[in-house]
């Protein structure tokens, strides 16, 4: 369990909301000041991915590759092969979808220092709709040998994930959001590869979330507590490698795990948790997320509620799962 100094005072005072993509933009400025060997590439979306400010401050270390994501990833690989640490950004849809083969062949096979920081992941892209709501990126990246996958829950964890990625050898994928999300972590929080964050204790069941679903998962746990159910809440930003110790402890101590993600349930966080639990300590699991459907146009808030990924929807799934728990 994180101590209170590592958490933002959610219960008291006004909630502060920041998009993880903004945290990325700021983290790049910090990196730029510290390290000459960090380059940033973008594919004509630098205003949206927030790499633009880095480009303005460090123009010699920023390369706009135009609307050509496959070439951007290949170029990033070539730069990394010559000793640079390269952050390559676009929307998650294009960085991982259009360029998956380049990520596999040119980045993961030779194990190069390319960090793919992709924004506008998931449903919370909102009104742009299904063509831009990437719901399969975690699956696509997680299956690649040597690739680490981070899905930070808020701006603090996002900044940490960028810092950790910059000093971790090899390929890293960081999934970032367009929409503002509540700040959960305090300034002293430190993210680590393969480590989850225990945000709320409870033994009736566990909720494993990441990205934008962590905040509603915490709210859901509060709703459940009002109904007498104590839910443990974990933020599993490091999907690959997964914090298997934390997940198996939850299986043993809580007896049921609900996973929550704005992503297809096949191959994402839910699958990662289910694989670990299935092999290590089988207990009932429900993978909550997108099931066999693409998204649609609406505001982020409306979409999360529509697909049951708001606090009420998560709480309902949790109660359902709890009723299936072995006693």
């Amino acid at each position, binding site marked *: 369990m994180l101590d209170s100094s590592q958490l933002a005072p959610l219960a008291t005072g006004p909630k502060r909301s920041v998009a993880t993509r903004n945290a990325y933009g700021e983290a790049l400025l910090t990196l730029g000041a510290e390290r000459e060997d960090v380059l940033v590439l973008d594919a004509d979306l630098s205003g949206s991915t927030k790499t633009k400010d880095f480009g303005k401050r460090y123009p010699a270390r920023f390369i706009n590759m135009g609307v050509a994501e*496959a070439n951007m990833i290949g170029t990033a*690989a070539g730069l990394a092969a010559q000793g640079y640490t390269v952050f390559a950004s676009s929307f998650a849809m294009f960085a991982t979808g259009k360029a998956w083969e380049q990520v596999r062949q040119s980045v993961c096979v030779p194990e190069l220092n390319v960090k793919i920081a992709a924004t506008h992941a998931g449903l919370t892209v909102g009104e742009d709709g299904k063509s831009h709501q990437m719901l399969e990126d975690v699956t696509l990246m997680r299956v690649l040998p040597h690739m680490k996958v981070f899905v930070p829950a808020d701006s603090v964890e996002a900044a940490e994930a960028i810092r950790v990625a910059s000093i971790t050898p090899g390929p890293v994928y960081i999934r970032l959001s367009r929409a503002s999300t509540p700040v959960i972590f305090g300034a002293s929080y430190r993210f680590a590869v393969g480590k989850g964050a225990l945000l709320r204790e409870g033994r009736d069941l566990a909720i494993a979330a990441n990205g934008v679903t962590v905040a509603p998962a915490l709210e859901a746990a509060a709703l459940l507590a009002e109904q007498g159910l104590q839910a443990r809440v974990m933020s599993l930003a490091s999907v690959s490698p997964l914090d298997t110790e934390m997940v198996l402890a939850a299986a043993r101590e809580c007896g049921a795990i609900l996973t929550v993600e704005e992503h297809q349930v096949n191959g994402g966080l839910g699958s990662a948790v289910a694989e670990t639990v299935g092999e290590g300590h089988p207990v009932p699991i429900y993978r909550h997320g997108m099931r066999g459907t693409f998204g649609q146009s609406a505001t982020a808030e409306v979409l999360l509620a529509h697909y049951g990924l708001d606090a009420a929807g998560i709480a309902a799934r949790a109660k359902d799962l709890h009723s299936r728990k072995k006693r």
Partner: protein
Amino acid sequence: MPLQKDRKAAIQAAALTVRQDTIRMVHRANSGHIGGPLGMADFMSVLFLEHLNLTPANRHAPDRDRFVLGNGHTCAGYYSLLSQKGLVPREELERFRTLGSPLQGHPHRNLDLGIDFSTGSLGNSLSVASGMAMAAKKRGWPARIYSASSDGESQEGQIWEAATSAAHYGLDNLTVLVDFNNIQIDGHMRDVMDVRDLRVKYEAFGWHALDVDGHDVDAVHDALLAAKAETKRPSALICHTILGKGVSFMEDQPGWHGTPPSDEQAKAALAELGA
């Protein structure tokens, strides 16, 4: 400077060894590609012996020249040249395409052996070479970045994404040598999917582009010098070659793109190559 007589003889001898090694390696592995390396042997030997600054002594130097084999399936010839330059032990050639060998069926990055990048999936190479060329420019290194490609690989869209960005960023330290033999695995390129005039295409993308007889070592040498002299633009040398060159029954035969020879065929091929 034109090629000196002894240098020319050394290049031609290296190309002959490439052809002999390729036949032996693919025959021994009973898999792999012969036609491409035989066709590329002459221009690749000019590049490796006369231009590419890669030696056992400098292989780990960050600022040396780089080479990316875009048409990675032609790696038997590439490995032969690395071996002739003292980077790959001769005995490793015998383990080509077998379990645990660093000489994989398509190149896998291994700086100890001078293998600069992992390739094999057509289309990815020019982007990587462009990134290397950008890095060299940013670091202020005099390194030249070379890539080999092919008419078949030019059917991949990513090649033209890379051609666009390499010209946009003025990567005059980048040279691609395109093996143009009018053959791809399914048949003659003109029948399967005609890429048409690649010199004209590269020029339209803003490159310095030349048509070269890929078997004329003097002409290839001159073209590589012209590429070095070029400022502001990357260079594309469209090397016109004959697939299977040097073995009469393999020349211009699409069937020899990726088929290993029988014992008799290998023997006959090596006899023609004077081995």
